[in-house]
């Protein structure tokens, strides 16, 4: 991929896409998110603490996700993030873009979607 701008936007966008997808079904806390990304990507993607939380805060500031402190009996409180309606729309749009992108790449490279 020779256009650094596109590359950058894609990866940045993909990080957002990952987070939004993971909080779509149920609210999750940060550590949970980082573990899910690591295990589901087979260890190919990792988010360190200093990059994950700033990203979460940014998404929250944009109104795409919302964090709430949840107290559970016998445990300490944790901050869970859930998808907002605005976030759902962004997620839908990003998924669409991503699919089109992957599709386009596959047509060119001949690599079949696994």
């Amino acid at each position, binding site marked *: 991929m020779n256009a650094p701008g596109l590359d950058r936007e894609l990866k*940045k966008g993909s990080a957002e896409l990952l987070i939004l997808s993971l909080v779509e079904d149920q609210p999750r806390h940060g550590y949970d998110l*980082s573990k899910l990304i690591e295990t589901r990507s087979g260890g190919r993607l990792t988010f360190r*603490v*200093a*990059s994950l*939380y*700033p990203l979460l805060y*940014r998404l929250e500031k944009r109104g795409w996700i919302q964090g709430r402190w949840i107290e559970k009996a016998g445990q300490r409180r944790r901050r869970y993030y859930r998808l907002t309606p605005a976030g759902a729309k962004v997620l839908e749009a990003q998924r669409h873009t991503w699919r089109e992108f992957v599709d386009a790449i596959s047509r060119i490279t001949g690599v079949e979607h696994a």
Partner: protein
Amino acid sequence: MPEWPRAINEEMRQHLDDEYAALRGRGLSHDDAMRVLAGDVDAAASLRRRPVDSLTADVRYGLRTLRNGPGFTAGVVLTLALGIGATTAVFSVVDAVMLRPFPYADMERIVGVAEATRAGQTISIAWPNFVDWRAQNQVFEALGVYRAMVVNLTGGAQPERLIASLASADVFRALQIPPIVGRTFTADEDKPGASRIAVVSERLWRSHFNADARIVGKAVVLDGQSHTIVGVMPAGLRFPSRLTDVWLPLGLFVPTFPVDRGAHPGLFAIAKVKPGVTLERASADMDTIARRLEQQYPLNNTDHTVSVVPYYEQIVQNVRPALLMLMGAVGFVLLIGCANLANLLLARAEGRQRELAIREALGATRWRLFQQLLTESVLMAVGGGALGVLFAWWGVRAFVASRPSTVPRIDLVAVDLRVLTFALVVSIVTGLAFGLAPALRASAIDLVASMREAHGARGAGGRLRSMLVVSEVALAIVLLTGAGLTMRTFAALAAVDLGFDPSRVVTMRVALPNARYPDVARWIAFHRELATRAAAIPGVDAAGLDSAVALEGGGSESEVRYEGQPPPQSVHDDATMCLFQAVTADYFRAMGVALVRGRAFADHDTADSARVAVIEEALARRFFGDADPIGKRIAFEFTGHGPAAQPIWREVVGVVGHVRHYGIAREPDIMEVYAPLEQLPIYFRDRRPNMTLFVRTPLDPAYLASSVRGVVSRIDADIPVFSVQPMREYVALATEQPRLNMTLLVLFAALALALASVGIYGVLSYVVRRRSHEIGIRLALGATRADVLRLVVGHGMALAAAGIAIGLAAAWSVTQLLRGLLFGVSPHDPATFAAIAALLAVVALAASYLPGRRATRVDPVETLRAE
């Protein structure tokens, strides 16, 4: 659970707790787990430092970052200080010499006017020609004429010699610089027979008259005659030279000027053109007059025209090429420095990717990061600039203290507000220049990749860095070639045979006023006595006097003929010109001039004996071929004018080697002829030269001077001895500009070479670091250490070769511009080009070898384990 820094918020602390627990769960010890988490803890803790969006915050943040890497910062600031300091120092000289406004009103309308041959050689003006110019021209509102002279100031404790200028009233009208006390001359005072008045310099006024505000009307004794002071000129008037101490009305001396249009008694003119008159029109008008005079006086005025040159040009033309060259050189040094720093910053930006990624993740835009990075480089540049100004101040002080006399307005050179402003602007521009590319690149960080701390080379960055190094090398080649050529020039000048031996020769001057020695015989007797008594001073090997001084470029010239030569049809018909000099018997011995044939002058060559001459070898060959010149007759003095002129024959008694009179590099086709002082050339009878005493002695010049002063005062107590100088100083002066050019250019080129080699070293170290993984694998797969060394050094040499090739091509065209500053070497001297290329290749090899060595020490096992 471990205690996390308080700066980390609760949510992230929890995350760290979870990580820690997971690591312990996998069997890691507390210490190992903490080691794994250390990076995350630091990064998370640093998130709290969220800067305000403003320049102040950027500056504060930048300063903190710079403080955290003191070695890096010091290196950058020092590089900048050298580059900006050199640029500032050279600029301060350029500013003082060329840019600073002149104190004269309407400088752009002031022109220097002189006679000139149509071949383009400027000569002094024949008085009758000047009178015609003044009467006939339509273009000047003032046309003044002046002539330098030396006067003796008496009446104080010791007689003193002052540099004076005969100036017509129009000189002051042309320059329009008001006196600080009193007035300048009126037209009535600028006439033959007017009473004797003088205008003095501010310096003389302060040193001799205590800055007396009521000086007007007081008397000063010059050359034994009382002059009434009418005004004081400010120090800003540097006309004709900054050393001029007194101005006398030229009109008074007009009766002493030859009425012959063939005589050029050292007169030059300064004029102010009328408003709206262009230089071209002024030149054309004067040329019309010159053509008219040519028709009227074909004998003397044939092929003579008038040169009209802006006065500004006259002042700066001799130094401009050298100054522009030096300005260019420091510009190159600064550029090389910038390339180096850009490289350094690129490397550093990669080390800072995590920091930047975090800031971007926190919401900082690319633009903000870019601003932040640029602020840091400008901060460093301004710091470097401040230190550079200090360097410049030292350099300029040393330069001015060395009193280079060939640089006009040198006393105005200073690191002042103008120069400081320049330094600030250069610093900021420099900071932007070297910071731009790295800031652009670094702010375009790749968020996810840097969060993953991915390995892998960034091709584009490597290319940019390589390009920077190649251009550094190319720039250094250009500078080095220039420096090499100036070195060759200086060596060629030093190798020139001067025709005399300057070691252990001390010179000093005496000026006998005509008024005090109206009689030629007494004038000659004084000098004969001086030569005899000076030779008798204990410790003196030989002493002689000459009417001219070698290397000084002045003297009296005339046509010279040999007996039997067909008389020329016009004076310009293949006339051989000679520089004729009157010398005492021991002059040749004192100066160490080689006697080739015959004899030098002797005490028996008197006013009554047969007239004799000593000529230089080249003249003997031109006139007499292989025949023996001794006993042949030549003439350079003529009575009467034109075809009716009668030669005064002199018999050639000796032949001497050629003495360089017109400087070391310049060699006009003018032959040297010597006459004994006792048989004073007729042209000297009315206009006596100031004689110079040459003493060959191992004695200290100052000690010798006091002995000679004693000798002179016993002959005549009112005659000052001045300009005591070892002959070596004349040689040094003649080579001053080439030496300055060489010294400064070599200095700058050395700086460039050092920076370029650091550049190569830096980029290769980076490459080795980036490729250590690959190198480890190569080693593991059986590559030898020599292979690895070859790989790295080869990379470095490839960069150097590209830079050398580009640099040589660029130097080929740039050195053309130096042509006027070179002597004895072509701007495309192959030896210099080859030597410089070889020098850079060697330096590049050394700079590549060190990182290469480091690469061979990569441990393949370690590399693979890191995988």
